[in-house]
């Protein structure tokens, strides 16, 4: 600390000694004022307590002689290095208190003793004399002094301080005076009043400053404490004075924290100093405690007020003492740790705080974590002279996108500042060769919601091999995460939200991967993500607050992401007995197939099949018995203690044993409840278990997760623009731009003969392929996918509905009977993974509304789309919303908090037209639209470029069209780019054309990987249609000039 202007602090050793002396004094007074103890016992305790106040307690022994009887501490022997004080009662010597060192020590003020130690000894002797007097007066061996303990105490301490630190007494008196004045004590006011000046100002409504009553100097300390005694109890005084003393001792810490200019180093040093003083947080006055905590929270984590409000009641100073050693930063750093770190930290503290009342929360751990302060990225950029990278964010997003691959390369080949390299190397020494994960912890997450988190990566490292190799891999991963700040998606996102000028710092967490080594693999027993709110309820018995857990064998990546061809196990921890999948068939179909883990031999993140893992590791996997069930025919049987044949093909991941025989679900339920309470909002939590302990990996407010944010339900929509309102079993979400409705008229359907009912199912399947993906809603009676009685709902399989955005079921009251809805149970998990919204409609129930006349009155496209199904037109109605409403789309807004949903006809949002109409927090929560548009725009541009560069003559091509997700503006990061080419050439031309297209596809795949991280071999899905196809309206040729979802021409020959 080199800056001037700060008060000089006494050196650490001195402060430590004062603290020890005070503690000894407190302790001794406490012993002497204890009620109901024999003097012998009191003396024995005293002898034990006294050495603690001296410089070398381990060599220090006390001797107490009273009335010729001497009391000795254990191990006492007489030596020349002694300090003695007489004990007097009524002026007569009755004995002596002595302190002896058993070994020689360096000379100080009085032999080896300090001046303050002499003061302490005298004070103690005086106190013992007082004690003897009291016993003598009362005659009773155990009578308590007339005054309370506190009263005795504060006086003794003040006396002691007067002798050792008189300036501190002045300061305390000053504070006490202020304290009394705030309490409105007139004498205190008078004492503070400058002599003969105007009357003290009353607080008035007048608009002129109050006249300040300046205190007299110097303060008459005796008078102050005398006044104080009249207004405060002895106990209050004692506590107040002690708090003042501690506060004075902690002043340097407060100063360091309050100074915005102090660096992390300086804050760290101050913390260390505080620790060295042997002070504890509890000794500080409550307000000072809070002040210090708030200051620390702001320095280390976040300025976010919501966060601080929650956190300040949970954190302890000790936490920061521990944290200090885990923060890596550049010299003079002013960085923070970022949102992810803050959330995790808070969750851990909340769980610990609740563990007293809830034993299930004991032993919830957090993996060892190191943090790189957010401004290390600035040091990194500076060190490599890469400053121009900051300017890129103001460039056109297009250019950002094109240059991004270079940024990654440049960052990955850059070097780290030497201080950081040293710190990383030291961290690796601590970690050893355990696998680690490098996660981003963005400061912007605090500001805008965790929408950002999805845009940055978590990178798993095997962390195997020699130290240089491991260090290189770690630096590489950090550089990659740093580069992601300058990726096009975050920059575009920030540009849209006017956040470009905000500091783009990002903290990094280096976390040990939770797991155990099994053979060549390293993996957790299980991991996953848990949500306070269940947005995918599979039974009406499950309440939203019952929560949702998605969990998998191995690393949690497969539970966090939604993969349409693999399934995590789902639980609702509040209703653990109600499972999504009840039959053996469902259990099998919706079970996990692949496992993410770390292959230690290959030193990397790897995905293997469950079967392969069980074959190789089987019974050696942690908790495998709790995870695996066996399906014998239709019988689901949990693994038992003697099970060894895990390689059996009937093994399936169910976690049935975990649910039934361990407290895991109750634990998660308790955890979610506690966290929801502390965060004042629903949370989502990532967790993992190594087989022995449950670990928290991440925690954030759930409402910030983009897709499950509650939508704002507009109240002022004119009735003619509302299609339906629903009030039961509603989850959160928002489906913005539906262009088509497929409505199965329940009455017309009920009147059909069986065979035609089946045909309805098949027709829906055909429409599903024909209509623009994720832009239509299916509304039908009763139970979609009913396998039993076809009269209860349209018989479809998941593949017949997999392109819809919303699956709605209508339950119309018939006489007194309200039919059950399916809640999508027949393919529930498919809906979840594809994020297809399920919506139950009860038009005849209170709060239900359904404008059927719109659906029945609108023009039905079915005969045009599928002429062969035209006879079903009275039953199946396909409605082009845009055409029917004069340019509006159907927007479905779901708000689970209110248990309300609406379908309204609104102007389309794409292109940000409606962005201005939506409230800001809602926009922030969406996050999804810009990315869809973004993926589409890029693909469209690429498609245009391909069309432009395509040599029609050379390859015999007559036209190029684009269709599918790119045309429909629904392209996601892993969508293909679908092209149709009208081909008229010969065989050689066909071969050459395909080759040319393949080259494009591979190149686009590479670019897409850099953009999004999704890897594939070929991004281009090009279909050649011939003249014959065109004439016969073959499958693909039919897209050209189709009634709906037609392919869009990019370039055609003039003919």
């Amino acid at each position, binding site marked *: 600390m080199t800056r001037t202007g700060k008060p000089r602090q006494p050196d650490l050793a001195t402060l430590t000694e004062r603290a020890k002396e005070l503690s000894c004094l407190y302790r001794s007074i406490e012993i002497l004022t204890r009620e109901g103890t024999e003097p012998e016992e009191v003396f024995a305790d005293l002898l034990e307590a006294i050495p603690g106040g001296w410089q070398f307690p381990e060599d220090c022994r006390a001797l107490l002689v009273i009335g010729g009887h001497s009391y000795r501490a254990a191990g006492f022997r007489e030596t020349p290095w002694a300090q003695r004080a007489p004990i007097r009662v009524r002026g007569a010597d009755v004995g002596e208190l002595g302190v002896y060192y058993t070994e020689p020590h360096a000379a100080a003020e009085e032999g080896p003793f300090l001046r303050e130690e002499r003061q302490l000894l005298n004070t103690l002797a005086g106190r013992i004399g007082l004690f003897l007097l009291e016993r003598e007066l009362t005659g009773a061996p155990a009578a308590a002094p007339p005054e309370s303990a506190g009263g005795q105490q504060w006086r003794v301490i003040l006396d002691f301080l007067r002798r050792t630190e008189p300036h501190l007494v002045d300061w305390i008196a000053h504070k006490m005076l202020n304290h009394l004045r705030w309490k409105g004590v007139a004498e205190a006011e008078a004492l503070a009043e400058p002599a003969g000046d105007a009357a003290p100002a009353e607080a008035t409504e007048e608009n002129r400053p109050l006249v300040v009553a300046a205190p007299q100097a110097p303060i008459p300390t005796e008078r102050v404490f005398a006044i104080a005694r009249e207004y405060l109890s002895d106990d209050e005084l004692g506590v107040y004075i002690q708090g003042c003393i501690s506060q004075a001792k902690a002043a340097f810490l407060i100063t360091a924290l309050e100074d915005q200019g102090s660096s992390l180093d300086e804050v760290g040093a101050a913390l260390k100093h505080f620790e060295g003083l042997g002070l504890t947080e509890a000794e500080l006055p409550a307000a000072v405690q809070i002040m210090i905590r708030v200051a620390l929270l702001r320095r280390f984590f976040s300025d976010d007020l919501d966060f601080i409000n929650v956190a300040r009641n949970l954190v302890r100073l000790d936490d920061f003492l521990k944290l200090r050693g885990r923060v890596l930063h550049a010299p003079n750093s002013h960085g923070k740790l970022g949102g992810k770190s803050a959330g995790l930290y808070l969750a851990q503290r909340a769980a610990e705080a609740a563990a007293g009342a809830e034993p299930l929360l004991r032993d919830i751990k957090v993996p060892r974590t190191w943090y790189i302060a957010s401004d290390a990225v600035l040091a990194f950029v500076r060190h490599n002279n890469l400053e121009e990278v900051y300017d890129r964010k103001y460039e056109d997003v297009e250019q950002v996108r094109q240059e991004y691959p270079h940024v990654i390369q440049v960052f990955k080949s850059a070097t780290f500042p030497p201080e950081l390299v040293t710190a990383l190397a030291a961290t690796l020494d601590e970690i050893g060769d355990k696998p680690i994960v490098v996660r981003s912890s963005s400061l912007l997450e605090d500001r805008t919601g965790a929408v950002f988190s999805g845009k940055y990566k978590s990178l798993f490292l095997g962390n195997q091999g020699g130290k240089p190799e491991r260090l290189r891999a770690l630096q590489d991963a950090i550089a990659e995460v740093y580069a992601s700040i300058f990726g096009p998606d975050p920059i575009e996102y920030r540009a849209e939200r006017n956040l470009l000028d905000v500091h783009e710092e990002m903290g990094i967490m280096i976390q040990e991967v939770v797991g155990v080594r099994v053979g060549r693999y390293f993996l957790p027993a299980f991991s996953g993500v848990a949500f306070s709110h269940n947005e995918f309820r*599979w*039974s*009406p*018995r499950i309440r939203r607050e019952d929560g949702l857990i998605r969990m998998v064998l191995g690393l949690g990546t497969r539970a966090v992401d939604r993969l*349409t*061809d693999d399934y995590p196990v789902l639980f609702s921890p509040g209703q653990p*007995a*109600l499972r*999504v999948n*009840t*039959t*053996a068939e469902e259990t*099998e*179909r919706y079970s996990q*197939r692949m496992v993410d883990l770390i292959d230690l031999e290959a030193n990397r993140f790897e995905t293997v099949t469950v079967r392969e893992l069980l074959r190789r590791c089987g019974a050696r996997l942690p908790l495998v018995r709790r995870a695996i069930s066996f399906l*014998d*025919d*239709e*019988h*689901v*049987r949990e693994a038992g203690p003697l099970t060894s044949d895990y390689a059996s*093909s*009937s093994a*399936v991941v169910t976690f049935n044993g975990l649910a039934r025989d361990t407290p895991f679900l109750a634990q998660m339920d308790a955890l979610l409840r506690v966290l929801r309470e502390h965060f004042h909002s629903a949370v989502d939590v990532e967790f993992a278990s190594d087989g022995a302990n449950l670990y928290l990996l991440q925690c954030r407010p759930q409402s910030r997760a983009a897709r499950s944010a509650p939508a704002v339900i507009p109240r002022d929509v004119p009735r003619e623009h509302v299609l339906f309102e629903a009030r039961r079993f509603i989850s959160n979400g928002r489906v913005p731009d539906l262009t088509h409705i497929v409505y199965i008229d329940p009455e017309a359907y*009920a*009147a*059909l*003969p*069986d065979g035609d009912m*089946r045909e309805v199912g098949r027709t829906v399947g055909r429409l599903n392929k024909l209509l623009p993906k994720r832009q239509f809603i299916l509304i039908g009676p009763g*139970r979609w996918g*009913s*396998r*039993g*009685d076809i*009269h*209860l709902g349209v018989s479809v399989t*998941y*593949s017949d509905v*997999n392109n819809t955005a919303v699956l709605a079921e209508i339950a119309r009251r018939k006489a007194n009977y309200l*039919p*059950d809805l399916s*809640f999508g*149970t027949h393919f529930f998990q498919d809906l979840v993974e594809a994020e297809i919204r399920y919506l139950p409609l009860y038009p005849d129930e209170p709060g239900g509304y359904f404008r059927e006349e719109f659906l029945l009155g609108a023009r039905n496209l079915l005969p045009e789309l599928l002429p062969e199904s035209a006879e079903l037109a009275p039953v199946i109605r396909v409605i082009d919303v845009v055409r029917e409403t004069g340019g509006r789309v159907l927007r479905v807004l779901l708000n689970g908090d209110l248990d309300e949903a609406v379908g309204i006809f609104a102007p389309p949002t794409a292109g940000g037209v409606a962005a201005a109409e939506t409230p800001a927090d809602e926009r922030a929560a969406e996050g999804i639209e810009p990315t869809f548009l973004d993926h589409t725009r890029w693909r469209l541009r690429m498609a245009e470029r391909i069309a432009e560069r395509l040599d029609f003559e050379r390859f015999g091509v007559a036209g190029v069209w684009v269709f599918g997700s790119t045309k429909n503006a629904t392209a996601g990061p892993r969508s293909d780019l679908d092209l149709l080419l009208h081909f008229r050439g010969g065989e050689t031309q066909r071969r050459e054309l395909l080759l040319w297209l393949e080259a494009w596809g591979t190149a686009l795949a590479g670019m897409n990987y850099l953009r999004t991280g999704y890897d594939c071999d070929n991004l281009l899905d090009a279909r050649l249609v011939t003249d014959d196809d065109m004439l016969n309206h073959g499958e693909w040729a039919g897209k050209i000039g189709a009634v709906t979802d037609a392919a869009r021409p990019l370039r055609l020959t003039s003919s």
Partner: protein
Amino acid sequence: MSTTKDRVYNSFEMAQAQFDRVADFLELDSATRALLRDPLREYSFAIPIRMDDGSSRVFRGFRVQHNDARGPSKGGIRFHPQETMDTVRALGMWMTWKCAVVDIPLGGGKGGVICDPHNLSLREQEQICRGWIRQVASDVGPFKDVPAPDVMTSPQHMLWMLDEFETIHRNRLPGFITGKPVGMGGSLGRKEATGYGVVFTIREALKELGVRPEDTTASVQGFGNVAQYAIELYTQLGGKVVCVSCWDQKDQVSYAYRKASGVDLQELLGVTDRFGGIEQTRAAALDYERLPGDQWIDQDVDILIPSALENQINAETVLRIRPRVKLIAEGANGPTSPEADAVLKDRGIFVIPDFLANAGGVTCSYFEQVQSNMNFFWSRDEVLGKLDLKMTAAFEAVLDVAKTQNIPMRDAAYVIAVDRVAQACRDRGWV
């Protein structure tokens, strides 16, 4: 167009209409018709349950014993939210014919509970199972009426029911229920039974057609349990499967995999997940050609074995069947539509109807009951050997009727079933 009210009775009315046609053919008297058109006995009862949250709910349970002239009623118990007495009646009648056609000494029954297991915890389901038994404990039993698993019920449900039944009767009566796990009174060979049964009938049909199995090729729709064991046994007989279709979960479409030199079952199983889905790339590496799923029917083979879904051979697809095809064995339920049936008849293609071809399952259930009653359990080979005898005999009997009466195999199967039941009723002096 029928009204809503009529429609509710549809499934049972359909079953009755089907019976009426056969009764006409057999010229059954009115008393026999009246006896067989409706169930002998029906039970409908309440099952009150204490739910996990402490509340009470009442579920409705059913049991229908359609006919037990030939032996104890046999039939599953369904858990279905929209279960109706009429569905149960129709299915109970169907069970009577099904047992009769393979000539096992059992009658037909069916039961159910109106409930959706998706909304119930396992404990609640257990309470329903036990409640169901308490209501009918004196009307069912190993020699009266033998339940089995069905829609949304599993071996676990059967064990709960068995336990409740045995507790009430203070006895051990494993023959009371079938579908139990092996080791808890279940029978070996059950997995193989249906698929093997299909091939036993194929073998007999080929004899009738005068073709040696080793000279034949087949195309199979589906790659589930039935299909896999059918392929296994058919290949053992010397036949060659050249095409198999299966559902691809990832692409959400079905594909057909073709290999002209013949499908190697073990090889293909090596690249198949538990769900009967074949991995595209690994299959390609093994020289399997991937075709659109519906092309299993276009193959130039001697035998088609649809063993996946209903209504696969319909008015449209039947036209794509190659001239070489001489035999269709229905491993699935209802794979052929009536329109297609007519075309097959015209073309002279031999059809082994579903309820004969896939009767291996119910026959094995009967074996489980027999073994449980004896408390002596056979080896797998013994089970499958006996299955062969039963299926072969059943096939021959149906074939005989088809030939002597000059009617299609499907009709012959019905006729023989109804005739056997009617005869039993007469023998007992009921009518």
